[in-house]
Every structure is written in structure tokens, then in C-alpha cells.
């Protein structure tokens, strides 16, 4: 029993405090705003707003939207970024399936493949046409990020793609994908968290969702309360963290810390 006792020095107090505070904020917001009350408002992120229009354009022109989900596995440090990119696919799937214009999705992480396929399959089931589902619309390209980007770029070049969305865990190699899109004059949208990828894609994308904006995809595209509440919690926590940073900086300046 003694071995199972917790020593205070073995606990990451700061992390537990941050997670505790975040959970508290999120739970309170879910209780107060989860089902009723005024709908939380949000800032529009053009990258996700335009994605819906591009889905419609793809359907009209008989082409397809390309969505690159990146190389972030679901068991690594990029798991939440990949989950956020899956939210984008989920938000888009029903509409794309109703237009009979499913997106071509390329993945560079093996664990993303079954989840992305499942999202598309469920959208077809909800639309009452499960037989129309084609698992080949979700493609695993390569496990190495650079090889994946080169393969995804080839998908853009060789298929009837009308617009490209690069969303998820990428490094600077994502510029291979956007460069292929630029060569074909395609509208380019992106949602990225890695600063190296952001700086690489800034010149080549029309609309870029940077950093925390990536996690707003679900809320931006569906407007569902469960996503909006998460955004409000994120905003509250950002203010708390910013105040803490200023407070700590002031303490350091005054020599009290």
C-alpha cells in the first residue's frame, strides 16, 4: 500500500491546476449554455467559411474537394490537432454527400485512415445511401511527412480537384501540396498549428486559419452549441492565461519573483 501513496513532489501541480480550471470552465458553460440560453457568438474564420462554398462549387462543376489531413497520429502529441482536422471533415461530410460530391481525403497517418473513412461512411448511412460509399475516397499516401505531401500533391494534379484544404498536423512540407494547387490555380485553404507550416503556407494559401483558429473548425462550419461552448471556454482561458503572464511579468519587473 505504501508504494501507492502519492508524494507531493511527484505531482505536476501546475498542469493539474490548468486542467482543473479548464474542466471547471467547460463544465459550467455546458450546464449554462449547452442546451439553452443565448447562443454564444464567435469571430468568423474565413478559411472555414469558404470551405462550405467550395463544397458547393465542387458539386456544381462535377469535381471534388481535396482535404489533406496531415501526418499526426492519434496516439502522439499531434492527436488533438488531428482530431480537430477530423472535425472539419465531419462538419462537411453530410453536405458533401447530399450533393453527391464527396471530398477526396488524403492522410499520412495510419490511425487517421479508419476514422476518416468512418466519418464518410456514416454520412452516407445518414443520407440513406450506404451502398454509394466508396472507401477509396479516403487515401493513405505514405507514413513519412515529405513523401505524404508529395503524394497528396500528385492527387491534386492527377484528379479533377476544384479546391484544396490543408488542415491538421503539417510541417513546412505542406508547401508541396499548396504549390501543386497553385499550379492548377485552385482556391487554397489551410488550418495549421505548427508555426513552421504557417510561415511556409502563408504565401501560397488564399485563406489561412492559424494556431488556435484550427480548433474552431467544427464551430465555424456547423454552429453547434457543443462546439461553440468549447470556443467560449477557450476564450475565457486565454484571458486568464494572458492576465497571468502580465501579472508574472510585473512581479519579475518589481523584483518580487
Amino acid at each position, binding site marked *: 500500500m505504501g508504494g501507492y501513496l502519492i508524494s507531493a513532489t511527484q505531482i505536476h501541480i501546475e498542469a493539474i491546476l490548468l*486542467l482543473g480550471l479548464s474542466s471547471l470552465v467547460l463544465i459550467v458553460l455546458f450546464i449554462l449554455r449547452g442546451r439553452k440560453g443565448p447562443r454564444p457568438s464567435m469571430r468568423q474564420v474565413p478559411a472555414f467559411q469558404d470551405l462550405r462554398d467550395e463544397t458547393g462549387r465542387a458539386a456544381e462543376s462535377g469535381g471534388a474537394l481535396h482535404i489533406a489531413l496531415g501526418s499526426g497520429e492519434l496516439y502522439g502529441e499531434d492527436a488533438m490537432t488531428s482530431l480537430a482536422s477530423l472535425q472539419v471533415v*465531419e462538419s462537411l461530410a453530410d453536405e458533401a454527400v447530399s450533393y453527391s460530391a464527396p471530398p477526396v481525403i488524403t492522410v499520412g497517418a495510419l490511425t487517421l*485512415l479508419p*476514422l476518416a473513412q468512418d466519418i464518410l461512411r*456514416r454520412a452516407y448511412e445518414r443520407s440513406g445511401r450506404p451502398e454509394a460509399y466508396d*472507401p477509396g475516397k479516403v*487515401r493513405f499516401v505514405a507514413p513519412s511527412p515529405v513523401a505524404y505531401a508529395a503524394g497528396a500533391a500528385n492527387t491534386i494534379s492527377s484528379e479533377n480537384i476544384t479546391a484544396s484544404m490543408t488542415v491538421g498536423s503539417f510541417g513546412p512540407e505542406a*508547401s508541396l501540396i499548396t504549390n501543386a494547387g497553385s499550379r492548377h490555380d485552385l482556391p487554397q485553404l489551410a488550418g495549421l498549428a505548427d508555426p513552421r507550416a*504557417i510561415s511556409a503556407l502563408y504565401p501560397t494559401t488564399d485563406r489561412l486559419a492559424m494556431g488556435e483558429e484550427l*480548433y474552431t473548425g467544427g464551430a465555424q462550419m456547423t454552429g453547434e452549441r457543443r462546439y461553440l461552448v468549447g470556443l467560449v471556454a477557450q476564450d475565457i482561458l486565454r484571458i486568464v492565461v494572458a492576465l497571468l503572464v502580465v501579472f508574472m511579468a510585473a512581479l519579475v519587473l518589481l523584483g518580487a519573483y
Partner: protein
Amino acid sequence: MSHLVKRWIPTLIAIVSGLVTLGGYLIQNPALVYFRVHLVEWAVIVSGFAFFLGLLNILRVHGRQIVRRRQGWFYSMTLLFAILLGLLPTVLSALPSLPASVPSQEEVDHVVFDFIISPLGGSLAALLVFTLTLGAFRLLRVRRSIGAVFFLLIVVVILLGSVPIVGLERLAGARDWIINVPGMAGMRGLLLGVALGTVITALRVFLASERPHSEF
């Protein structure tokens, strides 16, 4: 019953596994660490199955390309041929009486990685320099804004400041200042936002608000 199996059991498993794994990282309790290590090992095993699914997906997509003779079908055939070639040493090593002249799986792996995959990866990475430069020029063409000019100006200062040319020492100083002061501040702000987004997404999974694993 179906509702329970498809909806709540996967959610419950995900929440409990997530909380135990997170607990194992935050609190160095032997029991929590034991479960965390095992759950992460299971995740690796499950991802092994995903590898098999990935292989099937590649065979399906590229097999279809070849059968329908679509654009680039020759590259698809090359890919499938390379996969088969890669499998060959493993299959041969399983044979009971292998002639000594046949190279071992380790030797073939070394040749493939050192002389094919590494150089190809390096070449592709080198290609990035050109795509980035091309992107920067394209920026001037399609987006003539103050932000674009500012972006390119900083790129030029950073590049020239990184080159050891006599007379450009001031640019090296400017480069260091850009990287260490505004660059670092912007990067930290961006990463703080990403960290908060990550925390909220993870908590939404724990609170069953985000359910990528269940049928609803």
C-alpha cells in the same frame, strides 16, 4: 442494446482510458503509471492493425488506378511493385533452407533505406526550398498588401543576415533581433493558443462532447 453498444460503451472506454493515461502522466503513482504504459502499448498494437488497413487501402486505390488506366497508372504500378519488392526479403527469410548467397532481410533493409529512401527523402526536402521561394514570389503577384511586402522584407533580412558576407553585419544583428524578440513573442503567443485549443479538445473528448469513436 444496439444503442448502448454503439453509443455509450465506446464513449465510456475512451473516457476511462483517457483519464487513466492522463493521470499516469500527471501523477507518478505506480498503479497509474502501470496502466498508462500498458494502455499506450495497446495503442501501438492497435496502430499495427491500422498499418494493415493502410496497406489494403494503398492496394485498393492504386490497383483501381491500374485497372482503369487512369492518369499516372504507371506510377501506381511502380508503387505496388516496390511494395511487393519490399515484402520479398521478409517472405524469403521465412523459408527454412535459404542459400547463403541470398542477402538477409537486414542487409536488404539497409540498402533500401540508405540508398533509396534516404536520398529520395533528402531530394524532396531540398525541393522544399524551391517551392517556398516560388511561393514567396507568387505572394507578390497575387496578394499585393502591406502584410505581403512586410513578410517578404523580413524573409530577405533573415536570409541575408544568415549569410556570412562582409558588410552585412548589421543585417545579422537585425536578423537576431527579429528572431529573438518579435518572432519569439509571436511564436509563444501562437503556441499558447494551440495549447489551449488542445486542452479544450481533449476535455471535450473526456466530457463526451466530442465522440470520434462512436456511432452518433
